[in-house]
């Protein structure tokens, strides 16, 4: 089977890779590009640990073929902080301990950032529905939801001032 050549914009950098036609984007990110912040929980779209954004939307990278990434703009958890400066969501997750084992955290952060980019002032129930595709077996979700709502408020205040 001959490999396919793909060029995509990943976290702002033009990246070229070779992949099998049936290889998932998740597998390329982790195994070929060493971007192991994106996690594999289930491999079937149920857990959200593999969340990345493609263009303006949040996807499960386990349910996308790597070859579909051609010409697309992809963002993973590695592209969230600016250098050493954490994104406000990352900072807030840390400060409020919105994680325990941390396995689900990259997926939650990517999905939550996508929500706040689209809706800077979500209600609690909008946050819960938006994150319904991200599973966490440790936190009981409450701290995660609080952290997202608090970050949203913080970003709104910073933008307003």
């Amino acid at each position: 089977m001959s490999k396919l050549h793909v060029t995509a914009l990943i976290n702002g950098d033009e990246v070229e890779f070779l992949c099998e036609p049936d290889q998932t984007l998740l597998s390329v990110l982790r195994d070929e590009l060493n971007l192991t912040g994106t996690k594999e929980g289930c491999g079937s779209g149920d857990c959200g640990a593999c969340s990345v954004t493609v263009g303006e939307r949040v996807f499960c990278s386990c349910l996308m073929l790597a070859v579909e990434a051609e010409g697309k703009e992809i963002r993973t958890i590695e592209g969230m902080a600016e250098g050493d400066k954490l994104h406000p969501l990352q900072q807030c997750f840390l400060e409020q301990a919105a994680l325990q084992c941390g396995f689900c955290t990259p997926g939650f952060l990517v999905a939550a950032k996508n929500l706040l980019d689209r809706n800077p002032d979500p209600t609690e129930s909008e946050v819960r529905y938006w994150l319904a595709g991200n599973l966490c077996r440790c936190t009981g979700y409450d701290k995660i939801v609080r952290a997202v709502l608090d970050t949203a408020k913080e970003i709104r205040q910073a933008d307003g001032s």
Partner: protein
Amino acid sequence: MQFANPDTVESAVNLLATAKGESYVLAGGTDLIVQMQAGLKSPDLIVDIKNIEEMTSITADNGGYRIGAAVCGAEIFEHAGLKADWPGVVEAIDLIGSMQVQSRATPAGNLCNASPAADSVPAMIAADAKATIAGPNGRRTVSVLDIPTGPGANSLAAGELIVSIQLPARKLRSGDAYLRFIPRTEMDIAVVGVAVNLSVDEKGICTDARVGLGAVAPTALLVEEAGSALVGTEVDDAALETAAEAVRAVCRPIDDKRGTAEYRIEIAGTLLIRTAKIALQRATG
């Protein structure tokens, strides 16, 4: 396996029609890629349709809408016109999976995958939606109802694919709604799904009604008897009870971990009543 992403419907048809071995259309991949990962499908060819302009847009069509087969649920949910005219269809599509799934999954894929519990299908049946199919012999238009033929099976011939789904023009004083019953509040498979689409006249008398029913038979059903039970009435309690009995009468569910057959039949009637009330409120409100 080979991967192709043609930019015209004709070349997609050509690829599918001349392919040897197993070939599949790829829309959002939320069924296909899961099935590949599970080893249930091993394609020799995948034809991605997301590069085909005709299939990636929502357009006005004879007073109604034409939804390209590659348009994902999230985009449909963001379409103000569709939401205003067909809230039941839009809410059924919106129930499919998480945000991550919504960013990919298409109603055409939901239909072709032919799960008996597919949420968008009863709503599209109630709406009398049509599918435009392209194949080696040209194009044809069929009722959405005629696409699924059994669990995981559909009526498309080799080399055929769905190009778009059409929702008809909205009549005055019409409304539709979809409700499903699941044991959780999000991210689960329907135990029963009911869609109602109805119109009333100036006096509030129902002039036509279509009822779609999911998850209680090998394919989603159109329950004509339930629709006729509402026509000519004010959609009052007596009419709703008759329609609920008509729905229960056609249920042929299985027992599984989500519910026994007996339970599903009971719930189906109850859901019909609740769904019809929402549709009526939308038609008159």
